[in-house]
């Protein structure tokens, strides 16, 4: 089970400056040390993965939960899914939201990283604290606050728009119209994701040697050229990691969409993959069909992260 819901340091964060030499060659001891982790992962991650595959190949509904034997149906759940227009609109929605969020997150994160680099000490602290507050907010509490900010009757956004435009926005619902729903969702997701990206890129840019930038300037490179020709290539690997991680995080958003739907979105028009699996499985009891979607979802995730995993393995050299 992935634990990247918290937008913390990404996996593979700790550098390995030098391979430490093995001190033990005992056969049993390392396995003894690994036993607790292996047991937990095999039983609580490995088994459910296999079970997910098994469920996806069987007719499994509420009745089967009560003890009716599950019938093997081969790939029927998959063919049903792939010929279901609802699944495709959910998938398209998820990918659309992901692309928008990743592009905006990386762009804003880059701009803020450059801003951090340009500021004096005091203002840098001010901006850092603002970003840290957004980053530290627990996702669920954050969502409820955003729901209140955009509330139809008393939300501050409608208050401010009314004051700013002179026409009444009171009573305007931000969640009924799917497009506005996703605008709000994107805003919230980007708000939560930008701080980590900005800090990471800022740290990366600060490692670009000053001499190289000065040399580029002496050679007549404009600020934009210095950025795209010197700074970006220097931190290319960081960009790769950030983009892959952002894609994964934004594709599997659950809490944000689930809570916004609870406050006032229309489920059939706003569900993304994670929420859809929850709806189909936990909500309606179509465990087999939902598992087929879950398997497809997992495959998509692994394909997206394959490059990142390969790069990490290469980076580490001696795993």
């Amino acid at each position, binding site marked *: 089970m992935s*634990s*990247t*819901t918290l937008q913390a*340091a990404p*996996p593979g964060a*700790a*550098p390995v400056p*030098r391979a*430490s030499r*093995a*001190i033990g*060659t005992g056969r049993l*001891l*390392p396995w003894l040390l*690994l036993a*607790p982790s292996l047991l937990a*992962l095999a*039983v609580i*991650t490995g088994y*459910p*993965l296999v*079970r997910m595959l098994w469920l996806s190949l069987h007719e499994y509904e509420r009745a089967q*939960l009560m003890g009716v034997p599950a019938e093997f149906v081969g790939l029927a759940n998959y063919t049903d899914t792939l010929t279901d227009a609802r699944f495709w609109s959910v998938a398209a929605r998820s990918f659309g939201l992901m692309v928008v969020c990743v592009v905006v997150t990386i762009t804003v994160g880059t701009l803020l990283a450059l801003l*951090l*680099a340009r500021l*004096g000490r005091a*203002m*840098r602290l001010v*901006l850092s*604290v603002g*970003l*840290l507050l*957004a980053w530290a*907010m627990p996702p*669920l509490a954050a969502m409820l*606050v*955003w729901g*209140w900010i955009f509330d139809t*009757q*008393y939300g501050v956004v409608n208050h401010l728009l009314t004051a700013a435009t002179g026409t009444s926005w009171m009573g305007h619902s931000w969640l009924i119209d799917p497009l506005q729903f996703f605008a709000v969702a994107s805003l919230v997701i980007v708000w939560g994701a930008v701080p980590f990206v900005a*800090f990471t890129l800022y*740290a*990366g840019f600060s*490692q670009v040697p*000053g001499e190289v930038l000065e040399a580029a300037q002496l050679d007549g490179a404009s600020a934009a050229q210095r950025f795209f020709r010197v700074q970006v290539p220097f931190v290319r690997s*960081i960009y790769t990691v950030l983009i892959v991680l952002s894609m*994964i995080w934004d594709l599997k958003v659950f*809490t944000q969409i689930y809570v916004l739907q609870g406050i006032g979105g229309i489920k059939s028009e706003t569900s993304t993959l994670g929420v859809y*699996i929850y709806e189909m*499985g*936990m909500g309606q009891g179509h*465990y087999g069909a939902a598992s087929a979607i*879950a398997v497809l979802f*997992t495959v998509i*995730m*692994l394909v997206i*992260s394959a490059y990142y*995993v390969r790069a*990490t393995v290469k*980076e580490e050299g001696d795993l």
Partner: protein
Amino acid sequence: MSLAPAAPVATAAARALRPAPPGAVRRPPLRRRAATWGWGLVALVVSAAFAFPVYWMLNTSLLPTDEIIGPRLHLWPDEPTLRNYGTAIFEQERSPFLPALGNSLTVTFGVLVASMLCAFVGALAVTRFRFRGRRAFVLSILVVQMIPGEAMMISVFQLVDGWRLLNTVLGLGLVYLAGVLPFTIWTLRGFVAGVPVELEEAAMIDGCSRGRAFWAITFPLLAPGLVATGVFAFLQAWNEFMMALIIMQRPESMTLPVWLRTFQQATRATDWGALMAGSVLVAVPVIVFFLLVQGRMTGGLVSGAVKG
């Protein structure tokens, strides 16, 4: 806590507090001063925008109900009241606050202790020993982190159900343990690998036993890594919502995030004041904690990724 050179955890946020790197471009003083003020102003606006939801949560939680749902917008509380906190803590009859707090604390600390123990010995195994299957194990914990929990929820739910552990702290704790282990092992592995074995060997030449050499030399150098991964496990367990939603459905077994959701029901209007007070109770301790330890959180992604 001083960072051992062996574990160069460069922290981005802390770096943000240091002076600008050399190579900042020279400009004529007057223009530069104007630009500095300009960028400072931009930073102030951006900072306020990012912090706004946190402020709005605090503000609303301190307002009396008639000001929250009145015609006029109250940007700050003129006469702050703690009544919303009373409502959130004592009048949420469907699912009370204190049991939810107890559940959250129990799960969080249980996961913290268990994951640190498992991950610590696991990280030792994969860094200090060479054995068949080691590479495969390390690779699989890397890959497992990419599998979305959202996809696993049905089979995990059925597994916990099969153990008769739904609505128990133990059931949710086990799910969280498996969830954080790959990341904690992976991260700790980097820290352990960063401590040269030679230090231990030198201590053993000086007459320490292997065990004593490890506890006296290597373990203190690992402290920052243990803190970083511990913080991660803690925040993960405290904040997690989706699994708690499906495993802890009974009012008395809810964790705080699930408890917060009970403020909104289709049948009646939301008490925004109480909901924001509840959010403050859940969020502010974490935010304070995060601000204190963030330096340990933003890992050395950069030092690892940038090949100078």
